[in-house]
């Protein structure tokens, strides 16, 4: 028998985004809110992030992942917010009917509002088509982290890391601390993908070299990994023949990108942005399907959890407003122009001040980001330095906007 229930708001995913969203929605007076979490405990990916550095922005102190999550979980418990763990959502309709599997049975929840906070997944080897053998010993960084930190399983003794994403660098340090030798980190781009502080604390502090404009061009080893072939790449990102070098190793860690986990969103007919691969949202974090909202890494991959929490909290007001009768239309499109990879949100109403999030297309110094509407500058943000690894936040005041013409954000290098 399928158990059928109704809730005013259902949050899919009990990681940092879902926890913050549920608490904030509850604080707005929507007490009939429920969190669905697939893992045995709340906290999401933070539970395997045992390093510190979380919460510097939000709490002004350096917490570990589980500690950061713990602060929110305590609030969930104090406020008696309803949640289910070991509960995997397997279906979501545009009418906001959720199907979830639990050991107690199949659950059908009809919700007035749904908040998507499923986080992201890692790009695997297959997505990158790395030639060569198919030995064991090739792990994505998050998988390596889960094995080591959650299951006490050591994955190798001599590692090479491909990709300078934050988790890759954090795993370089983690493996070193557990006695493995980390030979190097290779990054195909001419600049690092992860945060500057991780390059300092995870690589430089441990003498692990970072090679930019290099990539793994072959995986070698019939059984367990024996080595990787690394080549330099040119400005076209193609390997330069003759630069191949063999690096002996038994472990290759891939930190080559995160993909928002939007399988459920697609089931519900939510429109995705081809650049972020997250839902196209308006200033209220509402997706193209009315009443379905999104926040955190399922919407756009963040670099700091503190901003995930903020983004999640920002949708509480709109969710309440939606439940109370509806949100104003968001008719003003927001577009990414030169030097800007994308923007979140993609539509605004003009009725309230908003903060745009985006990433630079490439590293820039002395850059000025300008938002235009009908040829007028409506907002300007000057930065000494901008890198793709660090998300940019730009405020736009409603009072600056006129009519429904599109707003376009561009980067201008200051002379």
């Amino acid at each position, binding site marked *: 028998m399928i158990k059928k229930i109704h809730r005013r708001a259902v949050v899919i995913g009990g990681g940092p985004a879902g926890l913050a969203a549920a608490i904030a929605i509850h604080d707005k007076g929507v007490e009939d809110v429920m969190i669905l979490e697939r893992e045995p405990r709340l906290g999401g990916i933070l539970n395997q992030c045992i390093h510190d550095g979380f919460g510097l922005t939000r709490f002004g102190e350096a917490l570990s992942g589980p500690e950061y999550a713990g602060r929110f979980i305590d609030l969930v418990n104090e406020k008696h917010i309803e949640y289910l763990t070991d509960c995997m959502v397997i279906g979501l309709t545009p009418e906001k009917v959720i199907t979830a*599997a639990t050991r107690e049975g199949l659950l059908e929840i009809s919700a007035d509002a749904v908040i998507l906070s499923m986080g992201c997944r890692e790009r*695997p080897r297959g997505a990158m*088509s790395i*030639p060569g053998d198919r030995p064991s*010993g090739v792990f994505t960084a998050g998988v390596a982290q889960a094995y080591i930190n959650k*299951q006490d399983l050591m994955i190798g003794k001599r590692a090479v890391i491909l990709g300078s994403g934050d988790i890759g660098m954090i795993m370089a340090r983690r493996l070193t601390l557990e006695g493995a030798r980390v030979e190097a980190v290779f990054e195909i781009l001419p600049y690092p993908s992860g945060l500057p502080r991780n390059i300092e604390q995870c690589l430089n502090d441990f003498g692990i070299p970072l090679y930019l404009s290099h990539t793994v*061009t072959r995986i070698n080893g019939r059984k367990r990994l024996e080595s990787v072939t690394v080549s330099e790449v040119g400005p076209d990102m193609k390997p330069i023949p003759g630069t191949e070098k063999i690096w002996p190793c038994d472990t290759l860690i891939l930190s080559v990108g995160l993909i928002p986990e939007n399988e459920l969103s697609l089931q519900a007919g939510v429109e995705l942005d081809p650049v972020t691969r997250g839902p196209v949202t308006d200033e209220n974090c509402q997706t193209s399907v009315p009443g379905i909202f999104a926040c955190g890494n399922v919407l756009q991959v963040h670099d700091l959890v503190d901003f995930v929490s903020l983004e999640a909290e920002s949708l509480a007001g709109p969710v309440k407003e939606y439940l109370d009768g509806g949100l104003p239309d968001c008719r003003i499109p927001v577009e990414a122009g030169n030097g800007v990879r994308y923007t979140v949100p993609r539509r605004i109403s003009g009725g309230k001040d908003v903060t745009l999030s985006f990433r630079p297309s490439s590293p820039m110094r002395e850059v000025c980001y300008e938002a235009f509407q009908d040829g007028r500058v409506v907002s300007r943000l000057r930065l000494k330095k901008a890198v793709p690894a660090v998300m940019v936040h730009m405020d736009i005041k409603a009072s600056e906007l006129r009519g429904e013409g599109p707003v376009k954000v561009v980067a201008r290098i200051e002379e």
Partner: protein
Amino acid sequence: MKERYDVIIIGAGVIGSAAARELSRYKLDIAVLEKMPDVCCGTSARNSGVLHAGFNNRPGTKMAKYCVEGNAGFDRLAEELDIPYKRTGKLVVGFNDDDRKALEKLKAQGEANGVPGLEMVDKAFIKEKLPFVEGEFAMWSASTAILNPFIYTVALAENAQKNGAEFFFDTEVTSIVDDGNMYTVNSGERSFLAPYLINCAGLGADRISRMLGIDEYTIYPCKGEYYVLDKRAGEMLTIPAYPVPNPKAGGLGIHITPSLEGNVFIGPSNEYIDDPDDYAAEKDVMDMLLSDGGRIFPHIRRDHFIRNFTGIRPKLVSKEQGGFHDFVIERRAEAPRAVNLMGIESPGLTSAVPIAKEAVRLLQEVLPMEPDPTFDPYRKGIVTFRDKTPEEQAALIEQDPDYGEIVCRCETVTKAEVLQAIRNPLGVHTMTGVKYRCRTMMGRCQGGYCQMRVAALLMEETGMKPEEVRYNKTGAYVFTGKVRQI
């Protein structure tokens, strides 16, 4: 393990497993020796997963005969063994006059082989069946099907085992001694005795053949590389689409095949190699697959790539000779108590049961066999959760709460299915053994979510230590041990 067996089968691919099942219909003690940790680790597993109709092979060949028979007999086999498959049909698409002539020849050849349901069709037909596939005209083959080669082989082996055949894994044959009445088949320190033997060693069949005193065969390994695409691409391709084959190539050309579960395979390439263990993906071949495949399926997108894999054909013709050599199924004067199966490449998967029946018939010439009245032809597979209605899913969870615990997010595989895979009667000791049986690690995240759970369940169920967990074969360890010794 017994003192001695009546028949030893070397190799637990689809042919060895089918031979074991056919022999288990009789009162015989059967041992199957496999060098890998599981069934279906070589050529049987690594192919397009197509049940061929039988039009690609010359009339009068064993290939043609057994392929047509294998296809016709599959409905019953699948029912007995609970093998998932789907009669999708297949389109061989053409673009120019040469292609048209070749297709008409192919159709005539198929009809001579007794293939039902072949017809020439126009572009409108192609576009109706496969709106995303290119082609000016095509040959339609109604009887072609797609199947899951792992489950097929596992099913044959499980049923053989249920009927008494014993499987020995991680048991590589190192030498064979024949005293005129009895074979002593050695695997390192261990020895297996039997008066009769069937060589189903696939890529290693020439090596085994030489151990039997038959020196004339050489297996030429010929690599076929594939791309695997996300199920989103599968929505655009529900029927296999092939180009017109080049008869000299020794393969069927780069084709686009839906897997039974909805992924898409692009491949295979055709590369002769020296080393039968070389499963590497080569950059230039990977690029070629995309450009060649793109001619008939121009909707290949980089963000749909989830994996590459390689199969190796055990060919009896060299690169210089080209084309195909017919299956060799023989019992010879040099080794009169052994059946030698050589060069079982495509369409070997389709032909497995007829080939096995022929091997048994050859053995019956020297070994009288008495039917076993207790033979049970039926086998049930793992009951999957993902393809059920919500009501059925709810009922499954009520019967077994492990069905309510989803281990693999992408493919919606439950803990109940993983446990059934691990507890399967043949025994599973590798990550791929679980994967092949229930599709964990096969989805778009490639194990990013589920592999930690699979590894934990594997250790919990089998009592293996972390360092004993293998990915797919000996030496392919996953862990070096515990992080901390507590």
